[in-house]
């Protein structure tokens, strides 16, 4: 009877509304976290990297080098730093994150065919700085070298056309697919969003049965003739709906305000969301059925957030993660969801290409749904964990 299920859902919603922190977690926190992270990453690209120039040469050539850096939008030259000692101090205190050192006799040595070089240093204590500065520096250097050569050739009397010819003899055209602007937001943001939805989604529903157990009302469900699957559907329905709404809301927010690239088939995005929704809601429900109290649930779920994110291969790639750990990560729904979402929305892949991911998520959804609908209605043995005493909502203070 649909009536019974809807009534269960109605009372579950009533309960959510009566618990301020649960309300916070279910309705507000996803949006709040997404907005917060959105604000953090909204710049999306590391620009204006503080750069110090230690130009000990002061020749025209060295000034050309400086100009090359100055004209690059990625860098911002910090004028106060002029000596090598100041550079060292500045790097230590984070005042600058990169430096260019042109030795005193640079242009002189160069014209004499002697050994000399321009030194670029960058802060690798934070590899976000490190990786990006290195790439940007090489771009500047390459461009500078090319311009310098072109100037030399012009000086040697070649025409513009001829110079072009020479320079582009082998034209290495570096194209960046899917994320040409090297935007961190396109890389990282939706992974964070998925993790937020995953954790808050599970946490909300994971308290639904433990709450009843702690308040001694679970036995009302156990002693009534109502079958397990109706209890499951009734209690999970509000969470299924809210979790999916949050999914849609957060995608919209990310796309509108954080300007994350979200392309790809709408159908696939929705299907991903539905499968993910089923998986986390029913996984949370199972946790609630088989865990004796809410405190344990809250703790363990929270502690798993960062590890789940890191092992997924979403940032540090899975080709560089030990195979066994990769295998374990592949047991987690979050790993598949994050990868699937990236493949659909960033790489714009079709069903044939991401089929395996949908298959696996489909299997997980089937598994969790099945286990949830057929849970054994039985009361757990009495809880001897002393923490359980603290968990009732009516436990008074002091």
């Amino acid at each position: 009877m649909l009536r019974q299920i809807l009534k269960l859902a109605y009372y579950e919603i009533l309960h959510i509304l009566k618990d301020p922190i649960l309300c916070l977690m279910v309705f507000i926190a996803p949006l709040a976290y997404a907005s917060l992270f959105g604000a953090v990453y909204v710049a999306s690209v590391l620009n204006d990297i503080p750069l110090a120039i230690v130009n000990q040469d002061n020749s025209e050539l060295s000034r050309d080098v400086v100009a090359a850096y100055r004209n690059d939008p990625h860098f911002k030259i910090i004028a106060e730093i002029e000596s090598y000692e100041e550079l060292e101090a500045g790097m230590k205190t984070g005042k600058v994150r990169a430096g260019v050192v042109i030795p005193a006799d640079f242009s002189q040595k160069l014209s004499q065919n002697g050994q000399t070089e321009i030194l670029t240093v960058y802060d690798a204590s934070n590899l976000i700085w490190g990786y990006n500065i290195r790439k940007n520096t090489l771009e500047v250097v390459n461009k500078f070298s090319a311009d310098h050569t072109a100037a030399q050739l012009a000086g040697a009397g070649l025409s513009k056309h001829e110079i072009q010819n020479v320079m582009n003899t082998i034209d290495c055209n570096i194209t960046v697919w899917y994320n040409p602007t090297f935007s961190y937001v396109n890389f990282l943001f939706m992974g964070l969003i998925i993790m937020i939805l995953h954790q808050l989604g599970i946490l909300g529903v994971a308290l639904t049965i433990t709450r009843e157990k702690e308040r001694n009302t679970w036995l009302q469900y156990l002693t009534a003739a109502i079958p397990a699957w109706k209890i499951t559907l009734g209690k999970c329905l509000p969470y299924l709906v809210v979790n999916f709404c949050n999914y849609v809301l957060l995608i919209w927010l990310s796309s509108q305000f954080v300007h994350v690239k979200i392309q790809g088939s709408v159908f696939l995005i929705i299907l991903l969301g539905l499968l993910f929704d089923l998986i986390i809601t029913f996984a949370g429900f199972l946790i609630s059925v088989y865990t004796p109290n809410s405190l344990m649930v809250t703790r363990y779920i929270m502690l798993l957030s960062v590890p789940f994110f890191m092992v997924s291969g979403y940032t540090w790639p899975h080709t560089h993660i030990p195979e066994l750990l990769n295998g374990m990560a592949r047991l987690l729904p979050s790993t598949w969801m994050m990868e699937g979402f990236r493949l659909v929305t960033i790489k714009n892949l079709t069903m044939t290409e991401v089929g395996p991911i949908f298959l696996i998520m489909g299997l997980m959804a089937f598994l969790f749904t099945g286990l949830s609908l057929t849970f054994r209605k039985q009361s757990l043995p009495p809880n001897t964990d002393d923490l359980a005493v603290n968990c009732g909502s009516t436990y008074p203070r002091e």
Partner: protein
Amino acid sequence: MGVQEISPILEAIDLHKVFGKKKVLDGVRLNVYPGECLGIFGLRATGKTTLLHMLVGLDRPSAGLVKIMGSDIRKGDRYKALVGLVTQDKSLFQDLTVAENLDFIASLKGAPQGNITSLIAKFYLQDYLQMAVNSVDAGVFQRLALACALLNAPQLLILDEPVKDIDLYSQHLIMRIIQEFLSQGGACIYGFSNMESSQNMHKVGWLDNGRITVYEPAEALQIWDSLLHSYNNIDGEKDE
């Protein structure tokens, strides 16, 4: 009553329950027939609640079985529609109102709405419907608990200390409704720890050391009185 041809509503056969090293139930046998009220007398921590929960399928025995209407309760859940339970520790929804509790539990049990209205009238709960359950006094709470147990029109009631320490009006009302239930052919298993109330019952099962001995109520009261007497005597002698 023609008891010989009628089969028992509930039969407990050789129930054992062990918690860790402690033997809580050690071969309990009992049965209860329609129209009968079997009292389970047990002092604190004798395993009374464990036994009662076992009879309704909440707890599993280490050995032995329970049959309700002839079928083993381990097989299937259909017997649950025939049973109503009032627990010793509060098990109603504290954050809901009286009316909401009735509504929700009726829905859980698949009971028709009509039952709710008649039970509200029977238990005189009209004035308390909008009150939160955690704010009503003990007597009203127990009335509500019994009303919820009766929502699915059960044939067997399992009551664990239903009237302990509540006001006399509610006590009287509850006992009257139980009598009415019994007269309509229902059976009742009634856990209690105050021997005086045994007079309302048809049989008393005295739970001690994990075993049940069944007495007639008058007999049980006699035994209890003599026990009291003997303890008083010992004290008396000491005083002298």
